[in-house]
């Protein structure tokens, strides 16, 4: 177990270095001279040289990368060109929108999908099962942002139950803040629910076909006990894994959804930063999202290794939905 953990941590460090290196090259090296970008085309050569020296751009690339990386470790993401404040402050101000949005979306996904998946597996090849499968196929085909637009059209424009966009402060009106995230979270969550319902159904079917289920039934256990205590507990392991892995995708999906609902989260921040050519902000937010996805993958690998010792020597188990 110790060797497995050490190996995974080494792989994690290598992956994090590669991710940061890739983002460094893509956003710091390829676009050209950051000093020119910051000062504009009117800048004099002396001013450019002075800023290059101040930013450390006159040093070798490896030194620049090392300086950038050491600053990151200290939580220093640099300064925004547009807002002229530390990027870490900007990110911190946007997290109270994006993190609750992602958690709420996962909550909706789980409460819809797991009961549906169990129902479909228990009623295999019956109308209810077909209904769930049709729901999941349609859910997989609908883009989350279109679902968001339709929700705005129906719940905000037609019924006027919700506002069409914007977020409220958690400090001033916690309920208002929650309400402003409901429709965006539902748009993101329902699509995830389609994936999870299919997965839950397939894992439950696999579990229900195992020998220990036959044994439990032959012992005279009630069907509810067999399904919920024996089959579900085993079937949920891959489902929980996928829920974890979807958190990363949700953060990326939030970039689009936050724009649909005009929510001041990380997604909106990075989107506006592209328009403003504020590359340090794009770099900081991308790095944060990519790091989060890598960390979640690492967590999943480790949990799998703990739960199933056979996987400590092999690859992560492939899950077929």
């Amino acid at each position, binding site marked *: 177990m110790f060797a497995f953990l050490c190996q995974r941590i080494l792989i994690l460090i290598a992956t994090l270095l590669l991710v940061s290196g890739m983002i460094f090259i893509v956003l710091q090296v390829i676009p050209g001279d950051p000093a020119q970008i910051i000062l504009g085309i009117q800048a004099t050569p002396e001013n450019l040289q002075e800023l290059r020296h101040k930013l450390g751009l006159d040093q070798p690339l490896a030194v620049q990368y090392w300086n950038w990386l050491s600053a990151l470790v200290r939580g220093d993401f640099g300064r925004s060109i547009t807002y002229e404040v530390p990027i870490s402050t900007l990110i911190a101000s946007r997290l109270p929108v994006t993190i609750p949005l992602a958690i709420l979306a996962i909550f909706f996904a789980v409460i819809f999908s797991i009961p549906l998946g169990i129902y479909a597996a228990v009623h295999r090849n019956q109308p209810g099962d077909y209904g769930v499968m049709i729901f999941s196929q349609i859910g997989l085909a609908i883009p989350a942002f*279109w679902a968001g637009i339709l929700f705005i059209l129906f719940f905000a424009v037609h019924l006027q139950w919700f506002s069409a966009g914007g977020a409220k402060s958690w400090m001033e009106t916690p309920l208002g803040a929650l309400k402003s995230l409901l429709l965006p979270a539902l748009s993101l969550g329902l699509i995830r629910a389609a994936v999870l319902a299919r997965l839950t159904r397939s894992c439950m079917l696999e579990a229900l076909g195992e020998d220990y289920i036959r044994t439990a039934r032959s012992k005279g256990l009630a069907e509810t006990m067999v399904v919920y205590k024996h089959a579900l507990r085993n079937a949920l392991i891959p489902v929980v894994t996928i829920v974890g892995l979807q958190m990363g995708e949700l953060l990326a999906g939030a970039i689009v959804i936050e724009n649909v609902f005009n929510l001041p989260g990380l997604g909106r921040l990075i989107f506006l930063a592209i328009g403003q050519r504020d590359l340090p902000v794009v770099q900081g937010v991308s790095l944060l999202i990519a790091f989060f996805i890598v960390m979640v993958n690492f967590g999943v690998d480790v949990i799998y290794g703990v739960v199933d010792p056979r996987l400590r020597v092999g690859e992560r188990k492939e899950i077929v939905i």
Partner: protein
Amino acid sequence: MAIVIMAFLSIAYTPHDPNRMNIEQRFQSPGSAHLLGTDQYGRDILSRVMIGAVNSLIVGWVAVGIGMGFGVLLGSLAAFWRGWKDEGVMRLVDTLYGFPAVLSAILITSIFGPGIINSMVAIGIFNIPIFARLTRGASLSMWQRDFVTSARAVGQSNQAIIWHTILPNILSPLIVQGTVQLAIAILAEAALSYLGLGTQPPHASWGRMLSEAQTFMEISPWLAIFPGLAIAWAVLGFNLLGDGLRDLLDPKLTEARP
């Protein structure tokens, strides 16, 4: 299939010029003159939805082509090399896996600017790790098979074995995955165009149409309905095609079928 036919048809015929503005005809409800209505510039929505299909399919095919090309190459080499080279390639693949399509598109467009080519490249990069992992996994088991040993015994080069023996045998899962990725690429292209990072105006794209529709959907809700339906229809079609191909090509499922 209907989407593909519509896309090909739209190259030769659309009911109206998809980019022609007619202010007098703006916000027309669906009717006999304009089957799906008109938008804020009086452009025919059906014609734009038809042309949008071409854009979506081109972006999807090219992106999957990029992902499959590079992914199969990396996966095949990793499976052949094994050892530290394999580990190195797979770590690179894992790194790419940390960038969802929207994120890689944001990185690319923030440097090179928005556009259809950049969105193809971005979605293509997102596809590389998926095909690389699939190819490596499938190739690893192939290298242990007797027919590969036989090919070696008769003196075939490693390159020839990969090209003529390994790849034809792992083609089925690649085709199935390609179909599924095509559906995902269409969704990603729509999301990027919605954000304004993909296809640029005046060219029609389903995501862009939805983005424009959001401003006017209170007075013209159909603007937000039909392009979304087209996306869902296309994605559903390719997902079902992928499921069908999997059923047809997966030996385990074929044997299980009564």
